[in-house]
């Protein structure tokens, strides 16, 4: 019974999270797919045909992994931040807090929900990309591994944002002013070899750069960085952020007075 009840609670949270983003699919699933499709058309097709090759691949083929990763990152993050904050805002988070659920189960439930949306949107974007480019997967294991870890890390990031958010502005500040610039400067649209040495060094401080490049390596077999090192960073980030989330939940930051 003891292990059962935790599993049931976990499944309940995940089911509720999936039900939420499916219910409002016109806000959660459709916009990112349309936006990324426009990137394919404008940058990949129209502009890309004039750019020629990047990193030894057609420009469209080069940007596909980055755009898929962009969809995964943004949707994993925004699902957790908006769901947990709206539960705080409506006080329905109290339903969870009064129930006999360990903190790690609560956290895992929200993270799984965020990953579910991130991966769903990522999958749809991948399907759309097939209309524009041939998708060859160099290493399925690395591709799946990096996408899972990236989704996990950004779901955890979304959770921390939601814990500290006091209003709806706080929910959009980080995605707008931190996440989007990091994604654009993380090598989605270009290889850092094009940059001067100083800016190459700066780019290497951006964690998203490692995720995009590792994912690109999984698909194309080419990367600006050492894949093993990138994986080690991802695992480290995931462990650190998970620890921070559990600590915040235990302290009751933003949820218990």
């Amino acid at each position: 019974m003891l292990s059962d009840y935790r599993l049931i609670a976990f499944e309940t949270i995940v089911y509720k999270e999936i039900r939420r983003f499916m219910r409002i699919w016109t806000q959660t699933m459709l916009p990112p797919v349309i936006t990324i499709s426009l990137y394919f058309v404008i940058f990949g097709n129209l502009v890309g045909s004039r750019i020629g090759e990047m990193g030894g691949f057609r420009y469209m083929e080069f940007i596909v992994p980055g755009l898929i990763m962009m969809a995964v990152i943004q949707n994993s993050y925004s699902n957790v931040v908006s769901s947990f904050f709206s539960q705080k805002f409506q006080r329905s988070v109290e339903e969870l807090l009064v129930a006999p659920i360990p903190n790690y189960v609560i956290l895992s439930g929200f993270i799984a929900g965020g990953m579910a949306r991130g991966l769903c949107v990522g999958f749809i974007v991948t399907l759309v990309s097939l209309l524009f480019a041939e998708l060859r997967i160099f290493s399925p294991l690395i591709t799946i591994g990096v996408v899972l870890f990236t989704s996990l890390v950004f779901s955890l990031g979304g959770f921390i944002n939601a814990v500290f958010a006091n209003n709806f502005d706080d929910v959009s500040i980080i995605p707008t002013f931190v996440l989007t610039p990091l994604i654009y400067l993380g090598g989605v649209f270009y290889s850092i070899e094009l940059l001067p040495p100083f800016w190459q060094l700066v780019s290497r401080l951006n964690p998203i750069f490692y995720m995009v490049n590792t994912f690109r390596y999984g698909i194309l077999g080419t990367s600006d960085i050492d894949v093993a090192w990138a994986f080690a960073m991802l695992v480290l980030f995931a462990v650190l952020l998970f620890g921070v989330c559990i600590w915040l939940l235990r302290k009751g930051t933003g949820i218990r007075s």
Partner: protein
Amino acid sequence: MTAAISVNNLKKVYASGVVALKGVSLEVGQGDFFALLGPNGAGKSTFIGILSTLVKRTSGEVRMFGRDVDTHVYQTKRDLGIVPQEINFSQFEKVGDIVMTQAGYYGLPRKLAAQRTEKYLKQLGLWEKRDVRSRLLSGGMKRRMMIARALVHEPRLLILDEPTAGVDIELRWSMWDFLLEINRAGTTIILTTHYLEEAEQFCRNIAIIDEGRIIEDTSMKKLLLELDTHAYILDTEADFDADLRHEEPGLALRKVDSHSIEAVLSGGRDINSAVAVLDRLGIRIVSMRNKVNRLEQLFLSRLRADENGGG
């Protein structure tokens, strides 16, 4: 028998510096129907918040059915159902989904959760609304849904913070019937309410909290016996014009209008003495009611005494 709730020297100071509880000690027996009364800002919701773990206590000890809430976190949470004063469910979810989800949070397998959801939504008259989005419910329905949600894991202790606020009279009575029924079946009930006549009628024991301290903790019967004056309004059979002067000690009669009389009894006088005097004056009584709710009278006198430092 172990107490359902045993609280010792409970203190709460919020980060803002507000002292909400100043050392509350209280015991509520198993199977009790207990009223926790107090004016706004007295500390009732903080007290309930601490029991539900939504508010962190500054110091003090809380035991539920003999178990320390710190060392038996999950068991004590399982024993407790909470109906808060404020609406705290998703306004976008369907009624049935909200109750089912809560059952899942308590680890109930899906089949059992569905059975319990049906059972409690039916008992609270909401089964027909199971597929309705919760924001579309009336205020009374929302409150009943929160009761169904709190009961879905069948707790041994149910705490209701203002359960009948905003509920119309008819539904209020059916809600009380329902609460009495589950109390008879063994569930301990603690409630706060502003409807003191309801607390007087349904609760067996009572505590009054004021400015973060318990100023009264006794049985309802004992408390009401302490009331030394009782005021009634008596309705006469016909209009009267008689002089109400009499020699009976401890009884004051006053004409309210041509067909009703106020009778104030003190010093152990009962209502029969008033009826006998009026009978001698040729006035027949057809009905009577309390002028002021007795508990309300006591409640206010206790608060006044507390304000004056009389304890």
